[in-house]
């Protein structure tokens, strides 16, 4: 977990595959890269077996670029589609049992603080809606109530896509799926409200049809989690297989859903605003200067 692990061992350089050599020489480690530079540097994410045109893959790709210090980051995941890509990256990945990813991340985050002290080591949980809101719900909520300092990202595809299309807590009411032929009878879980009640310092919803916004949201969430408390991002990452979205219409669907039920929302606690402003120079939370008093008609 440092720049030392992203280099060649003496004498082995000529035996390493091209992808590895590109990663060492032109990867994002130790540099600042942004989404606008995509296509010009070697990304930490490699080839993976996720479906063609998957919006979740795009989100994961953007997330990996947005990590403030990829060389000092560990990702934690659980069963679900996302882990197929998250594990194929030059970032250490811990695979928990189904649903215990926030428990694993709690221990990991505390252990790293004991070992490395104030040196930032970021832990980022990326799990699906089933892993976060259904099977891992108890551990997710408890980690938030304990104010564990790591980021939780829900890859919300609104279905159990990996096992044939069962409804999840995050599926919309009335949705008919292959393994839920009668349609879901309950409302979509309001995880955003629960995150706020549980005391998360940063809560945001995002859709990957705006790469710069994804980048900004993830950077803020990871930075706040270093010192202030738990952070939560809920990302709409459609399953084009289970919802039968043609692959070339995935971004059109993302735009429609963003306008319908996934508008960008961002909650930042006062403590987190102060932390971002003072520690990392964010200007968006500074108090705006008071508007000049409106002129009174008829008076000079």
């Amino acid at each position: 977990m440092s720049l030392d692990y992203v280099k060649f061992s003496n004498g082995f350089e000529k035996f390493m595959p091209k992808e590895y050599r590109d990663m060492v020489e032109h990867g994002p480690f130790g540099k600042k890269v942004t989404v606008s530079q995509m296509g010009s540097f070697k990304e930490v994410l490699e080839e993976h077996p996720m479906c063609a045109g998957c919006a979740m893959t795009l989100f994961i790709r953007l997330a990996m670029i947005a990590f403030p210090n990829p060389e000092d980051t560990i990702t934690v995941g659980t069963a679900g589609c996302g882990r197929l890509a998250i594990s194929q990256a030059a970032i250490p990945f811990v695979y928990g049992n189904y649903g215990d990813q926030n428990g694993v991340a709690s221990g990991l985050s505390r252990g790293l603080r004991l070992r490395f002290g104030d040196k930032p080591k970021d832990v980022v949980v990326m799990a699906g809606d089933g892993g976060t809101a259904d099977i891992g719900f108890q551990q997710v909520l408890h980690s938030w109530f304990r104010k564990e300092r790591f980021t939780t990202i829900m890859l919300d595809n609104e279905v159990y896509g990996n096992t044939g299309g069962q409804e999840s807590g995050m599926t919309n009411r009335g949705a008919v799926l292959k393994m839920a032929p009668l349609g879901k009878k309950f409302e979509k879980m309001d995880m955003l409200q629960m995150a706020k009640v549980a005391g998360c310092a940063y809560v945001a919803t995002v859709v990957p049809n705006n790469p710069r916004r994804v980048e900004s949201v993830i950077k803020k969430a990871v930075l706040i989690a270093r010192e202030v408390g738990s952070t939560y991002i809920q990302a709409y990452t459609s399953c084009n297989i289970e919802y039968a979205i043609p692959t070339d219409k995935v971004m059109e669907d993302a735009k429609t859903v963003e306008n319908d039920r996934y508008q960008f929302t961002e909650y930042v606690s006062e403590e987190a605003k102060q932390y971002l402003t003072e520690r990392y120079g964010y200007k968006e939370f500074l108090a705006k200067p008071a508007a000049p008093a409106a002129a009174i008609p008829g008076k000079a």
Partner: protein
Amino acid sequence: MYLVADISVEICAAKSCKLCTQYCPEANTIQYSDEMGKEQGFKYGSAYVAVDRCKGCAQCVWVCDNMAKNNAIKMIMIDQLPKAALTDNITYGEKSTTAVLASPVVG
């Protein structure tokens, strides 16, 4: 045979919006080269596809047609591409990449 994305350098280099590089779900598949357009006399560089990594989803086609309004990307059968970029032939520079084009099927 299967479809892969093909970017027209003539159209892309005229605008060079780079949107497709940000919306492709696959990493290091749509790359950007500063030289690719300039060597043909255009002001900007062009995006290009590493066809061995392309899964043929055509998301870039939608982005180029509807968001950028460039219509520079088409899906083409891989054996009908005259020459294309392959991962092995791509070199990274400081701020850009360069690619030596080769037959996508033979290499």
